[in-house]
């Protein structure tokens, strides 16, 4: 799967969790403008199914922005 497709799908999943339209790749995933740590686990569950990969919560340590998450998925898929 190419990078562009991964970004599109990650943003779609994130929109379902965050329920907002103004999200982009530079957005910080967690925190005030992002999602809670519990929602992050739920997001991972959806992404694992979508991309057929296993993302350990430990991998999330590298993730600050949505773009970092896309990098991680690209690396794993």
């Amino acid at each position, binding site marked *: 799967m190419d990078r562009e497709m991964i970004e599109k799908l990650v943003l779609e999943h994130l929109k379902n969790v965050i329920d907002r339209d103004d999200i982009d790749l530079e957005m910080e995933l967690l925190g005030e403008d992002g999602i809670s740590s519990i929602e992050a686990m739920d997001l991972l569950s959806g992404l694992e199914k979508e991309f057929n990969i296993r993302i350990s919560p430990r991998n999330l340590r590298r993730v*600050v922005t949505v773009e970092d998450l896309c990098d991680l998925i690209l690396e794993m898929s």
Partner: protein
Amino acid sequence: MLTYSECAGLNVHELFIKIRKAYGDRPAFIWRSGDQIIRVSYEEFVGDVFEAAYHLDKKDFSGKRVIISGRNRYEEILYMYAAAVIGAVAVMTNFDMQLKAFQEELHRLEPVAIICDDEDRELLLDFEQMPDIQHISLMNQVWTAIPDDLSVINDRGFLDKTIDLEAPALMLMSSGSSGHSKWVVLPQRVFRPRDKTPSGCEQIILPLYHVAAICFINDNLCHGGCTYLSDIQSGIRDMGYFHPQIVIGVPSYLRLMMKKASAGILDLSCFEMVGSVGAPQDPEAARFFEHRGISSPSFYGMTETMGFVTYEDTEFAKPGSVGKIGDWNEVRISDYGEILIRGDHIMSGYYGDEVENALTEDGWLKTGDLGYIDEDGYLFLTGRIGNVIILSNGENINPEIIEHEISKCKAVEEIVISGENDFLVAHIICRQPGDSEIKAEVKKYIARYNKEAALPWRIQKIYFQEIPFERNELGKIKRNQF
């Protein structure tokens, strides 16, 4: 249902003999493995525990510490009890969510074995150099052979010793009443069930290093219930397979369930109870579930009390209270307002900690929580003695650890960490307030810290302040101003 009084004076081995006899073919655990649903009866589960105990005993692990780490798997529960059966100490942990310094903590414990998931294999390289470790094993590969003569794995066959009720059986990490992380040592007696624990078809989503997960699994086993094994990541999806009656989660997870149910993704019709642990219940979520006929109590307790101390009387709940004091423990308020607890579920102490004693001479646990008890036996919390921040995801954060770390940045004059719902914020006074370059330096430093920190410990927002922090008469910053 095995009651609190029926289980008096039993060690874990004796308790399991009783459990097997009481519930035999009933399902004890159910979980998903890929597209398959796996079911294990009480008979099979106790058999598995005794078989694992037999092997642990052969390795001479009795009285020693065994680290168990995984992601809510059946085998973790199995080995936790197996260790307790032979008088070893199960240290329940997880490599995912802890600080980097956590590995040093594990070294301090001088474990004889580590049992963990395959995916944590790389982390074990560090431990393999430790001279005291006799055996490092991975789940599913732990035992290559079962004993030739299975008859040795019977009710008493392989154990020719009686394990004392005060012998350590379990260790869990806690932020402690003073806010410094410690290993809580829980003896054999803490597995005695509480009659008020909700039991039935219960889905576990909390991690197994969380005391509430162990407390609810243990009491559900003693009451003959069926436990569905799941985790936070797959919890909502698994609810669609299992249709549980009971789920216990941290408040932010209950909010997620509320959101999913509102969006039509989660069907709540099977639920009888959605309970909250780890932090005060979210009133909006509680109302949401109760409006749908689902009870939504919150439970007050600590790692040091092996779970909850109070329960919610659904007929007579009191707003603002954390519930009615359970008859399995005594609770009183000290002269200076601190909540003190005594009973069979109280820890025996902190590992290696001789300086700070959280227990009084006559066995009362000093909780660090301030509160009062009303005339009907309901407990109310009014604050904490220490500075621990309790986030809505149940994480207990000691702000001083983070403040110390960020203070190493030369641009930071003063810093205070506080909590906002589910995340941490930093209030900072720079050495040159108003200088944008200095602020940028601080932001960069915090971004670097965040990259290394586990998720709940990350700083998600920074407030730069130019006026001094308010201080008390001793010159200490008043934390309640944030």
